[in-house]
């Protein structure tokens, strides 16, 4: 198993260099950066949705907060966008508290609906608020001489920054899994009433999970804004943002450490490929495929691809090995 981690780390670290020789180097590196970004967002959602079992469909509010603050500081007050990153986290934490506390009393579908409604409400408010650019959105620095404005020509610096943040997030998640928080969250996911009757301080720990999740989702939003240089209500707070986080995590395996990364590694290239092959003719196949994938996962393997591997594929491989040994 140790080799597995090393191989993964090596692949991630060396990817930009590995593709550098091809004709599509810049594009592949860009895609790699976007995949890492998707992995960060999905892994952040995973803490609340996968580990705690609270399916939030409104995480866009945290992503949006993280994306809007840096660009707000830049466009309105000409400050370096980086300063907005911690502010975004602060706003997200505040949102988490204000939204989380009352909403956690709701169960299952009610909770999900509430998250959709709150995120949608925030989107509408922002769409009509001139300071935040209203429907037009906010822009970041396009070409800056300062390194701290992060306007790189190549995708490689972004790639490594995103990789760094993802690593931190995964390490934090890994520790969480093994900590008391992780233990309690698993209990909550298995059955909230049972957990409460066993003395688990359910509400408090759900809130911790939400705050952790919100923090990293906010960071994902900030990184998106820094790389793209633009944000508007649709790209920052739209429902598709929330849905994308969920699908990415669920495809790979919600509730697992590496599921979201796997999901991102598959979905981002898939998205680009369908756009490139079919996009020119304009048939919009990408989202049909997304919808089909989600339905299939929900119907046949809610644990995602990692679960599929563990329960269906790996045992067969194991049996074959055993068989040859026996022979």
């Amino acid at each position, binding site marked *: 198993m140790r080799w597995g981690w090393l191989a993964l780390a090596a692949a991630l670290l060396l990817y930009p260099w*590995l*593709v550098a*020789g*091809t*004709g*599509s*180097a*810049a*594009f592949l590196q*860009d*895609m790699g950066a*976007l995949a890492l970004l998707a992995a960060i967002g999905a892994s952040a959602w995973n803490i609340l949705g996968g580990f705690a079992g609270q399916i939030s469909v409104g995480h866009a509010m945290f992503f949006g907060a993280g994306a809007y603050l840096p660009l707000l500081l830049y466009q309105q007050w000409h400050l370096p966008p980086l300063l907005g990153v911690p502010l975004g986290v602060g706003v997200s934490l505040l949102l988490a508290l204000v939204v989380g506390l009352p909403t956690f009393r709701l169960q299952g579908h009610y909770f999900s609906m509430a998250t959709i409604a709150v995120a949608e409400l925030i989107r509408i408010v922002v*769409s*009509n608020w001139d300071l935040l650019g*209203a*429907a*037009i*959105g906010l*822009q970041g620095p*396009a*070409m800056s001489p300062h390194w701290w404005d992060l*306007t790189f*020509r190549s*995708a490689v610096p972004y790639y490594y920054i995103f990789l760094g943040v993802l690593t931190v997030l995964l390490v934090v998640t890994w520790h969480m899994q093994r900590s008391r928080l992780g233990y309690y969250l698993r209990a909550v996911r298995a059955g909230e009433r049972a957990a409460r009757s066993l003395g688990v301080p359910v509400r408090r720990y759900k809130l911790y999970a939400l705050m952790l999740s919100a923090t990293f989702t906010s960071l994902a939003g900030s990184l*998106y804004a820094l790389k*793209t*240089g*633009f944000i*508007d209500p649709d*790209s920052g707070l739209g429902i598709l943002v929330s849905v994308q986080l969920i699908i990415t995590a669920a495809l790979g395996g919600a509730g697992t450490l590496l599921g979201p990364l796997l999901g991102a590694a598959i979905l981002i290239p898939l998205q*680009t490929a369908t*756009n*490139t092959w079919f*996009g*020119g*003719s*304009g*048939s*919009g196949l*990408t989202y049909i495929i997304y919808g089909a994938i989600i339905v299939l996962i929900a119907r046949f393997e809610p644990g995602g691809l990692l679960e599929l591997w563990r329960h269906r594929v790996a045992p067969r491989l194991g049996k074959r090995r055993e068989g040859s040994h026996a022979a």
Partner: protein
Amino acid sequence: MTRAARFAAAALLAATLAAPAHAADAVKIGVIYPLTGNAASAGQAAKAAVELGAEIVNTAHPGLQGLPLAEGAGLPNLGGAKIELVNVDHQGDPSVGQSQTLRLITQEHVVAMLGAYHSSVALTATAVAERYGVPFLVGDSVALNITQRGFKWVFRVTPIASDFAKSYTEFLAEMKGAGKKVDSVAVVHENTDYGTSVGGSIVEAAKKAGFAVIDIAYNAKSTDVAAQVLQLKDKQPDTVVFVGYTADEILYMKTLRDLDYMPPMIIGDDAGFSDPSFIPAVGDIAQGVMNRSAWDIGKPGSVTAEINELYKAKTGRDMDDTSGRWMQGFFVLADAINRAGSTDPAKIQKALQETELKPEQLMMGYRGVKFDASGQNTLAATYLIQLQGKEYKAVWPANWATAKLRWPMTGWKQ
């Protein structure tokens, strides 16, 4: 993908790139449109227009006299090289626009870019072009800040929000001077970035020109606009300007009819009013509404009429203002590449900066093409058309008009 597979793919790519070397090398231009999503129909129409433009440049069209590069085949200063379009869908997503522009520049090695419809996508895509030093011609996104960032590689041919606002206020002032009652103007605009930026410009310009302005913002894609129409009926403005997309505008016309309120004049800001489904849906109750356009089919036998025939043969319908702007942007770009006599982006940039096209050389009704230091075409203009019968006719300014302006509008009344 394994390393071996990656190298194989790269080799294949190199082979395909090497293949056309025996023909005069095609000049590649990258074009990004919204081919899926909410603006897909506009994007598809634009794609047809740009493709037609490429056909016109690449093959001889002796009938299109005066239009640069149309009469001969290919780009003369590059040995008759043909233009090859690389069409890409940006899905209305600024991040996809950014990535695809990067791909077009670094993988497809396009010599120039054309795009993008959505101003949000134009903002991110042009930033990539600026960083890589590749000219980007904006055929039709109207947000002001696209050319306000001090970029040197971005050029815009189309008029912008403030130009439209200026045309409207000039028109209304002229009407007032001619004795019509025009004291108050209502601006009913949807609240996504299109409606907000254009609506805002119109409100500002109208206030500056001394009109009493009523600013009504509404949610795009509303199910029901009765409230807004009732507000209008209440306030009785002398003119109503609508800024919105197709569904809303059709709904507004129907609701105006249902609630029996007809303002003296309605001006529609392109978009919804120009959509192919507008006239069939509400043409009979919207007689006399005005619209803006820089495209007019013109007299039979004229260059514009012939282009329209070619477009109709290709798509089954008449060319509209938005697609026309894309095509014009393409022609300006092709002309600049030809004048540069080279595929070197820096030379093309210089040729673009030196562009000086006269109105007779254009298919759109601009006063010419000449870019200022920020890359904006200072001679861009828009004109006003009016729905008379089953089509829009050019009515203002007088020197462009092909029909007489009727004020007030007759709507559904005879």
